[in-house]
């Protein structure tokens, strides 16, 4: 029995039947990390001692006959932009290389309360800016399916860790596709919840109006379990919605009969590679055969999502990242003449090129004389994009689209052309702009590389997404395949 490729749900059953201990599970994962991490490089920090300590605490509870929650003893990895008290949180940036938060993110606190075991902090594109994890300030992460290729990003470390059996589940963050796109490229499930469903408190901000924490898991059931654990209103986050979240596992039924599924034609056009289109077509066929009413539809402003996103997100980022100045925490340039010089040297050396590019872009878009033409214009187009979704959901229960225009690309292939790299997110950006939930599930392979299917739902329609995704999963086996490691 290979513990490292069981789902969280399966691990939990073994635990409560006392067929395996949390410590054994934990040690199996730590051994797996030991075995493959030099090839995958999914982690910035591995917290073996903390993990064992947490695992033993779960074992003591089980031994005492206590009932433990469904994720107790499950080894998870956490993206390194989510604050963990006493554990270094770097955002894969040199500027935060030594930052140890004195507090836990709300999502982390909730996972602790759920009894999960923290294996460590995962690599990412610096400050979540990127689609390949090549923008990490430390090292790139490899795609477990092809070590020459990228795992996607920015939550590439989390996706790769789950795909490589280095974690049973992981937390990521998604600002423009950063959970769904790496999930697609690594062949795992990735869920971006509705904006406001999961507290952002403790998530290091990239673009505050778009950021959302969500799970990366082996299957849809685990995604539901993780969402159950982390969602909910948080008084520490003013943008957290007071919403009575259902038990998301209650939506795990193999039934899509009568559901109306829309396929926006703008997501199936130019720029989507043939094997991806084929996988989507197969999915449409399958869901239709299972009784769903699948129909083509239109989100007419889709092509404007990319420029809209690349004005709004950098603008917010330019302000969010102003605090990294070498005064209170993180890296500081020591050879400065005065404070302004210290700020400039610290930031120039501490940030990587993509982060600087976006800070520059965002600063420009907000600066005097350009605000109306760029930033305000983008906010208005955002309204149109959101209205596209509102209209579509008057008719459809769920929208279906590719997650990524292509399977995993080679490392280095797009690093020199930012615009080309930004195109990796064309299928996911609009979902963040509209604030609606999206999930990526494995939907096939192209030349041995995973292809993802994206389902998009109404605000707080995660249940419906999980239902369709679960049904799809029940009739496919892509999620059970393992990378050749």
């Amino acid at each position, binding site marked *: 029995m290979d513990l490292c490729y069981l789902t969280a749900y399966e691990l939990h059953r073994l635990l409560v039947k006392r067929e395996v201990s949390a410590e054994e599970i934990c040690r199996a994962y730590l051994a797996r990390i030991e075995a493959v991490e030099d090839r995958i490089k999914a982690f910035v920090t591995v917290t073996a001692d903390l993990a064992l300590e947490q695992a033993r605490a779960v074992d003591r509870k089980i031994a005492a006959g206590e009932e433990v929650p469904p994720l107790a003893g499950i080894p998870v990895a956490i993206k390194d932009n989510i604050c963990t008290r006493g554990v270094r949180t770097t955002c894969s940036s040199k500027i935060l290389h030594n930052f140890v938060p004195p507090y836990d993110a709300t999502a982390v606190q909730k996972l602790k309360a759920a009894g999960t075991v923290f294996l460590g902090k995962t690599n990412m594109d610096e400050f979540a800016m990127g689609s390949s994890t090549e923008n990490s300030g430390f090292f790139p992460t490899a795609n477990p399916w092809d070590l020459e290729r990228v795992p996607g990003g920015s939550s590439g470390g989390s996706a790769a860790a789950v795909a490589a059996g280095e974690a049973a589940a992981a937390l990521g963050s998604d600002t423009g596709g950063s959970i769904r796109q790496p999930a697609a490229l690594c062949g795992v499930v990735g869920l971006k919840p509705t904006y406001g469903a999961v507290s952002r408190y403790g998530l290091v901000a990239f673009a505050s109006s778009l950021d959302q924490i969500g799970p990366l898991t082996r299957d849809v059931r685990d995604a539901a379990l993780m969402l159950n654990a982390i969602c909910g209103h948080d008084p520490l986050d003013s943008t957290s919605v007071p919403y009575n979240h259902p038990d998301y596992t209650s939506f795990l039924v193999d039934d899509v009969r009568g559901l109306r599924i829309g396929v926006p034609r703008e997501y199936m056009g130019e720029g989507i590679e043939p094997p991806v289109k084929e996988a989507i077509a197969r999915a449409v066929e399958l869901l239709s055969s299972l009784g769903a009413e699948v129909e083509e539809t239109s989100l007419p402003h889709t092509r404007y999502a990319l420029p809209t996103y690349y004005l709004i997100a950098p603008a917010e980022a330019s302000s969010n990242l102003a605090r990294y100045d070498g005064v209170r925490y993180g890296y500081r340039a020591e050879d400065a003449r005065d404070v302004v010089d210290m700020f400039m040297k610290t930031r120039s050396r501490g940030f990587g090129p993509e982060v600087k590019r976006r800070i520059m872009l965002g600063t420009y878009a907000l600066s005097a004389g350009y605000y109306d033409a760029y930033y305000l214009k983008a906010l208005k*187009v955002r309204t149109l994009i959101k209205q596209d979704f509102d209209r579509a959901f008057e008719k459809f229960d769920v929208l279906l689209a590719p997650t990524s225009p292509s399977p995993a690309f080679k490392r280095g292939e797009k690093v020199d052309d930012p615009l080309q790299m930004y195109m990796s997110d064309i299928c996911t950006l609009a979902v963040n702009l509209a604030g609606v939930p999206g999930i990526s599930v494995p939907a096939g392979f192209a030349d041995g590389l995973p292809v993802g299917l994206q389902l998009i739902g109404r605000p707080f329609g995660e249940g419906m997404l999980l239902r369709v995704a679960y049904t799809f999963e029940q009739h496919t086996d892509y999620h059970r395949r393992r990378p050749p490691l």
Partner: protein
Amino acid sequence: MISIKEVEHVALLARLELSEEEKEMYARQLGAILEYAQMLNELDTADVPPTAHVLPLQNVWREKDEVGRQLEPEEVLANAPDREGQFFKVPRIV
């Protein structure tokens, strides 16, 4: 499309020190991205309200004006690159 001078101005606003090569690179790349963004001008948005928030939320606040937990002094300064006593220390201002 955007000048080196503009790049320098923006870099100062953003407190970034750029090399000559970086200035040229960003002038080129930002130019290309902004040109791409011109696409938005195809849309007439005169009567469209801006969306800064997708949320239907308003009036979110803390009801009680009661003091909560503060950080311990050592927690405050644990990450400080430089300190003097209980103060953060910075180079001269001017």
